[in-house]
């Protein structure tokens, strides 16, 4: 698919096509900015991106559409029987989705496997998703084996019922990760934090998005 020439400013129009909602305040989408910055400024052609938090994928589809990774016509058929775009992504239908997701806590372990093979991998998880214990199996192991080609992007919109004392980045640091917290709406700060590579450690970028 060719480049569309679409920019960040075109995303609201794509989101309207996806949802049929013309009055929505799209800035409330927690993942929109981090997904845009990753796809616009960070990901290289050999890098892998895995959306683990597959709930509410409208922002993801809009970004993939803008980047020419899904046909724009598909946005109009969202979640219909013949659509390749569902309410959770299916990577067999949409290769650009990286993985099929929906059930929480699967992306980070798969990302660890890909990083062990030498791939530079970015995996996006939510702070609520981190409730799932499978994530911590991956966080512990990746930290201990110093898996430096792995970056976990935690979109923290404070949805975890029991919270993360000291911030979720403290948990990653304890397990040996190089972790930072940035403003999840600040494109320059996101780009800088995401482009940095962990030195001898996996990297965690907590993108804070106040609900």
């Amino acid at each position, binding site marked *: 698919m060719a480049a569309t020439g679409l920019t960040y400013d075109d995303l609201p129009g794509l989101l309207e096509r996806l949802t049929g909602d013309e009055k929505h305040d799209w800035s409330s989408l927690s993942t929109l900015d981090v997904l845009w910055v990753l796809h616009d400024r960070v990901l290289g052609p050999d890098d892998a991106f895995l959306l683990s938090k597959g709930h509410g994928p409208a922002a993801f589809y809009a970004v993939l559409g803008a980047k020419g990774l899904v046909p724009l016509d598909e946005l109009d058929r969202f979640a219909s029987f013949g659509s390749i775009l569902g309410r959770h992504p299916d990577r067999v239908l949409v290769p650009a989705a990286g*993985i099929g997701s929906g059930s929480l806590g699967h992306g980070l372990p798969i990302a660890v496997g890909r990083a062990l093979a030498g791939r530079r991998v970015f995996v996006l998880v939510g702070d609520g998703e981190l409730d799932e214990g499978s994530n911590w199996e991956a966080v512990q192991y990746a930290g201990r084996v110093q898996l430096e080609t792995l970056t976990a992007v935690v979109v923290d919109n404070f949805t975890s019922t029991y919270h993360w004392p000291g911030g979720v980045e403290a948990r990653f640091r304890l397990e040996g990760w190089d972790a930072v917290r940035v403003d999840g709406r600040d494109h320059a700060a996101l780009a800088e934090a995401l482009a940095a590579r962990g030195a001898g450690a996996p990297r965690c970028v907590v993108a804070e998005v106040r609900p």
Partner: protein
Amino acid sequence: MTMRERFYALAAAALERDERVAIVLAEIGAAQLPQHPRVFNVGIREQLMIGVAAGLAFEGYRPLVHSYAPFLVERPFEQVKLDLGHQDVGAALVSTGASYDASESGRTHQAPEDVPLLATLPGWTIDVPGHPAELDALLDDALAGDHRVYLRLTDEENAAARDGRRLRIVRRGSDRAPFVLAVGPALDQALAATADVDATVAYLTRVRPFPAEALRAAVQADEVVLVEPYLAATSAGAVADALRDRPHRLLSLGIRDPELRRYGTPAEHRAAHGLDAAGIRRSLDAWRGDPALAAA
């Protein structure tokens, strides 16, 4: 050499021979397999074990994943379903322990439900070998492809190795004699149970995909007996489907009480589940309702 020991030797050789092969472990097997850049022991983390295998498969490796059956299949079942099946990547899962090898260890280390669970998922090849020497060909098959394979090792074994990847007639009875289909390590007990009975006894180790056409071609009788070393009736539906237009009676033998709550030896468990020769014979006679045979 047990099946498990033979697996470790074959897996170590495969690592050297084939650069696609990567082994993923959760402690179990780490002491028996060599230290190698493509052996990943993730600690006691079975969900991660399956996820890592999926990630390696994404990158073109052929993951060999190994643990005790309950920790390989049941604990991370959603990872098996989604990280492998739904992502549409392949791996070979190789378990040990089977239904009651760990007879002294209790329920937590016994997985008579492993085969039926995996049989609910589409596209899996399931191999249940009955002799260590059968492993070589099964592992070669498993490593050659990109498909999803479950290879179930056990300490129980038949006296002789056979190729059970296709339905194989081991002893042929008269045309209308009962047809006994024994899976993997159940064969020798089934043979002993029917030593003086006019019966055809067949052997199968590749239970999925189920060889429906081969069964149709082989079965002349209207009495069919299925002997499976895991949950009873696991393949009853597959047999019924294969013979759907033929009047027949089916006896499904296997484990019916996974919560036995006994320790002791594997042989004692086999007998308690009615899967030793005497138990199979008792079930057969009762089912056929033949007093003469019952007295034999």
